[in-house]
Every structure is written in C-alpha cells, then in structure tokens.
C-alpha cells in the first residue's frame, strides 16, 4: 500500500525538509519524534 501523503505540522528537524521531498520523508522516518496537530484529524467538532 503506498504511503499516504500526510504531512505533520512540524518536523523535529525542519532543515531536512527543505531538500527533496523524498529525502524529507526518509529523514522523517528516521526521526524519533513526530509532531501532529491536535486539530489535524477529522471527526471532531
């Protein structure tokens, strides 16, 4: 199944995301912390 295109609101290492998006995705996978917007999931008022 292909990876969905969810983008966390903040990467732990923002500098990495300025590169090629594919690299950013790989770096993201290596990061041990992912931040998520609490308003960023559907199904709440």
């Amino acid at each position: 199944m292909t990876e969905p295109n969810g983008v966390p609101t903040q990467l732990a290492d923002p500098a990495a995301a300025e590169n090629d998006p594919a690299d950013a995705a790989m770096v993201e996978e290596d990061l041990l912390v992912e931040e998520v917007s609490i308003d960023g999931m559907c199904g709440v008022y």
Partner: protein
Amino acid sequence: MKLVEHFKHGLTAPICLTWELTYACNLACVHCLSSSGRRDPRELSTVECRALIDEFQRMQVFYVNIGGGEPTVRADFWELLDYAVDHQVGVKFSTNGIRLTPPRARRLAATDYVDVQISLDGATAEVNDAVRGPGSYDTAVRAMGNLADAGFADFKLSVVMTRQNVGQLDAFAAIAQRYGAQLRITRLRPSGRGAEVWDELHPTAAQQLQLYDWLVARGEKVLTGDSFFHLNALGSAPLPGLNLCGAGRVVCLVDPVGDVYACPFAIHREFLAGNVRDPGGFAGVWGTSELFERLRRPSDGGTCGSCSAYDSCQGGCMAAKFFTGLPLDGPDPECVKGHGERALAGVSAAPRSDVDHSRRRTAVPLSIGFGVPAPAPADRACDISPLAGFQPTP
C-alpha cells in the same frame, strides 16, 4: 511507521472526542449536524457525566470537545467543565455564545486547560442569520467581545463553509483577528438537518477550488479539523493534517443519552457502536465494539483505490457518502474529479436518521420557527424551551 499508519488501526483510547452534552438548544440552525432543539428526557445525569469523565481520565483521553445542542443550557455545564479540567481532561466547548456573559468569560480566561469555540456561519448578520436564525450573529459577536475583553486569547471562531459564505473567507479572518481569536473553518456535511439543505448549501465545485487555493495561500494559521482532505487532489500541496478519517480510530462521539457513534457527523444506527451505560462503559465500547473493530481493519479503497488521487483524498468522508446515499467504498459526493457527482445521479434515496430532536417538524415557512419559541402549552417536559426563565443580561 508514520503515526498516521498507526492511527488507521485505532488507538487504545481516543486522542480526543466530541461529547454532545444535550440535544437542547436555543437555536435551530438549518444545517444542524445533530438535529438538535429539544432536550431528550434520557440525557445522562450529572452523576453519570462525572463517571464518564472519570473514564476519560483513566483512559487518558487528552481532551474532549463538548457540544450539543447548546451545551451551556445545561445547568450543570460549568460544574462539569471544572470537574473535567480538575481530572486531567482538557476541554474545548462549542457554543453559540448565548451564556458567555462577561463574568463567565472572565472565569474561563482564568481557567487552565479550557478552550472555547464560537460558532458563526456568516461574516455578516445577513449571511449568518439566514442559517442560524435572527439575532444569532449578534449573540456570537457579543460573546467574542466578552472573551476578548476578559483577556481570553486564541479562542476559536468556527465556521462551516457554505455556498453563501465562501466569498467571506477574508472577512472571517478579519473578525478572528479583531477579537484575538483563531479562525477555524470546517466542511459542511449532509448530516442531521444538513441533509435537507445540502443541495442548496454545499459549495460548488468552483468554490471548492477557491477554498482550497485560499487555504494554501492564506490558511497557515487557520485550523480546519482536517475536514478538507477530500480537496487535496486539487493541487500538489497537501493541506496540513493527517488527511485521515479518524472515526472510530482516533476520535468518536458520545451523545447526550450516552450513545457512542463513530463521529459526530454520523449519528445514525449504522454508525452506533454502543452506549456508555452498557456494562463495559465507554472503555468497553471503544475497545470492543464490532463497528469500531470493522473501521480499524485496513481497507483497500474500494472503487477509489485505483484512482490516481486516492493517496491524497483517501476516498473522502464516510458520513458525506452515507447521507447522500452513496456506497462507502466509492467516491465522496464532492469528489474533486467529479466521480461523486456522477455516482449521485444513480442514487434513488438517501438514509435519514431516526435520531431527531428538532423542535418543529411540521411544514411551516422557513421564515418562522427560529429562536426561542413563543410560550405554548407543552405536552411533555422536554418540549419546554431550554431557556424558560432565562433572562439575558443587557
């Protein structure tokens, strides 16, 4: 594995959830997703509500969004709010502003772990009141002024996007800024009374593009409740958010009589997981309900799975499909590629929920029936206006 992948399989407890405290409401918005108006006599008692909060605490539900109906018309609302924040359950409550007096606003501003969300669906009284009723714009603005005056920073101004207000996006942003609030815009779903006005109110395809472009250009500080991921295929920049339906996996709804639904836009027997009064309580429903187990199983996208846009839109919104009569394994009614529109042509009937607490169900012209009903003999206690005896402060 990214967090969103874990979310699809469900969590040990919701991250947050919507808790509709009462079906009573002083308003009668035409698109009300919960078909609110009349109090249900089987509402959870104060004691039951506290027990539910205790469960949320044990499960570490991080926060609850308390709504309704109008939650502040319950006499025990403020007590329950304090009980929740005193028990490590954060609260955001959704309100039309009717009871947000200056003293209340000051009390809220001094309370930690509370957030307030004011509902408004027009940047002008003309646009707003057509949907929410005469005087509702003024009520909301007064409440926002009270919160701002009390120093409550960053409360939420929450707008449901309609055909009539898409052109007012900049104006909404200005209103939010004026009161020190954060703008939040969300998708109209054909849920509750929304099903009856969906055809006239939902944005056109052209407006969806306008909305998407606005979010990309100017939506950096605008919350969306992740409700527009069905628009992601319109461009190459995915909107921020998990782009994921959280129903039954990360979030759910507890309704005023304790029924647990997959989400607040899906109040229908089809999406009923159980009741908090069942022997296992809320935890038992969340952990073991057959409906939620089904929602947490991986899906292949059905007929959408082969579409190039599927990764972006994930097939859209389950509730939007259900209440327009579309199959859940097919396109969203507002599919940006037009697949939904084509599918709608083949729909003969759409399901309606039998959970309906609307205050008037007789055929009267739309121009009457808003606001507090005129005193009339009630045949049941729950037909009495929830505001009986309420004197608004000038």
